[in-house]
């Protein structure tokens, strides 16, 4: 059933109260910190503002200094919202749309490869609207690849997750590897992925079955 809103795109007193609880700084730049009340407050505020449809409040939030100080804060906020099946669909769609805008305005010096896994995850979602938005976000990322060079700075290289060093560290992809994954493996099957949440399993399975073979050259 469609959600009905009676706020007519305006914030209520309750929403104004929520905004007063927004932090001025974050204890860590990435939003993949699930035991931090500050991060949770920002996530809840974003979700609430997407529900009431207050685009001004969302724009103000996304331009907040605590979200722009580090390049990983904004995309990690959006990714945390869109990957969670517990958040309402409208919030997840709004997060993916904001990410698409971010990709479209991306400067050549920034590389958002750290969010490819979150986009792949959303292609396996049970909600077709979320999958469709995820497919559009993949296309936006693919379009941004042409702007990148080997000198682009990886967003989240050091601060994507708090535990990455203790657990062996995040691994990254070189530009040709990213192009192979996005342009040769995922994008050609995006229409099937929009229709079927299981299709990405089949698609990646075919591609990754060659992994681990010594001496195997690029597919």
């Amino acid at each position, binding site marked *: 059933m469609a959600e009905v809103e009676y706020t007519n795109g305006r914030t209520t007193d309750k929403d104004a109260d929520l905004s007063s609880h927004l932090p001025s700084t974050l204890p860590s730049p990435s939003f993949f910190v699930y035991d931090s009340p500050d991060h949770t407050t920002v996530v809840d505020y974003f979700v609430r503002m997407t529900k009431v449809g207050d685009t001004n409040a969302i724009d103000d939030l996304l331009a907040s200094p605590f979200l722009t100080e580090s390049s990983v804060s904004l995309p990690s906020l959006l990714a945390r919202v869109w990957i969670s099946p517990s958040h309402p669909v409208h919030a997840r769609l709004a997060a993916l749309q904001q990410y698409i805008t971010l990709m479209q305005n991306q400067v050549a010096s920034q590389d958002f490869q750290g969010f490819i896994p979150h986009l792949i995850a959303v292609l396996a979602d049970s909600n077709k609207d979320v999958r469709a938005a995820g497919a559009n976000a993949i296309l936006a990322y693919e379009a941004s690849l042409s702007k990148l060079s080997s000198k682009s700075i990886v967003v989240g290289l050091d601060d994507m997750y*708090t535990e990455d060093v203790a657990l*062996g560290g995040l691994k990254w992809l070189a530009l040709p590897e990213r192009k192979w994954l996005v342009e040769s493996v995922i994008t050609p099957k995006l229409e099937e992925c929009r229709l079927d949440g299981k299709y990405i399993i089949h698609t990646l399975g075919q591609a990754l079955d060659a992994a681990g073979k010594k001496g195997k050259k690029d597919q």
Partner: protein
Amino acid sequence: MQPARRARKTSKLSLRSANNSNPTSVMVFLSSHVVCSGSSALQFPLLQILNESIGAPAALKLKSQSLTPLLERCRDGDYIRALLKQDPQIDTAEFTKRLMEIVTPGSSSAQVNILLDLVSLHGPVSAAACQQLAVIFPTAGQSLQLHIAQSLVNQLESGPQVSAFWIICSFDRISRRSHQIRLGLYLFPQPFSSLCSRM
């Protein structure tokens, strides 16, 4: 290590990986996000993709190796409980099953030992670890089968009743399916009902 120095080191690693095959690099990349993210909402779908999509032995081996740090992290009961509480829409039984499926038939004895440890810890993933041992057992070599059997018999003798219940439920099924399975003969020389009467 200082962030800047680590950043340089990571960049060098990623450049070096460009010389490897693309599937291997992508597998390692995706696995590292599963291991490091601490996000059940990300781990849940990615584990499904990695567990269900791959069938080639070399790829399965690489997947298990790449994801083993997460399996080891599961020894920490507080960590896994926090992970399971993170997202109420994620089915905890299915999530723990996917975590334990990191170890597959053909995995190393070291990885099987982690599953045995997880059973003995009587934590939130112990039941799923026991069920995965039952999946692995029929294809394991004779010495590994004996090792699993001995460890589980020790659990039956000295562990709590709930642990015995997991072991009996998980392995009785496979022992009934095939009379050739050594663990079935080892664990169930007496009728199943008499074992249940101990609980």
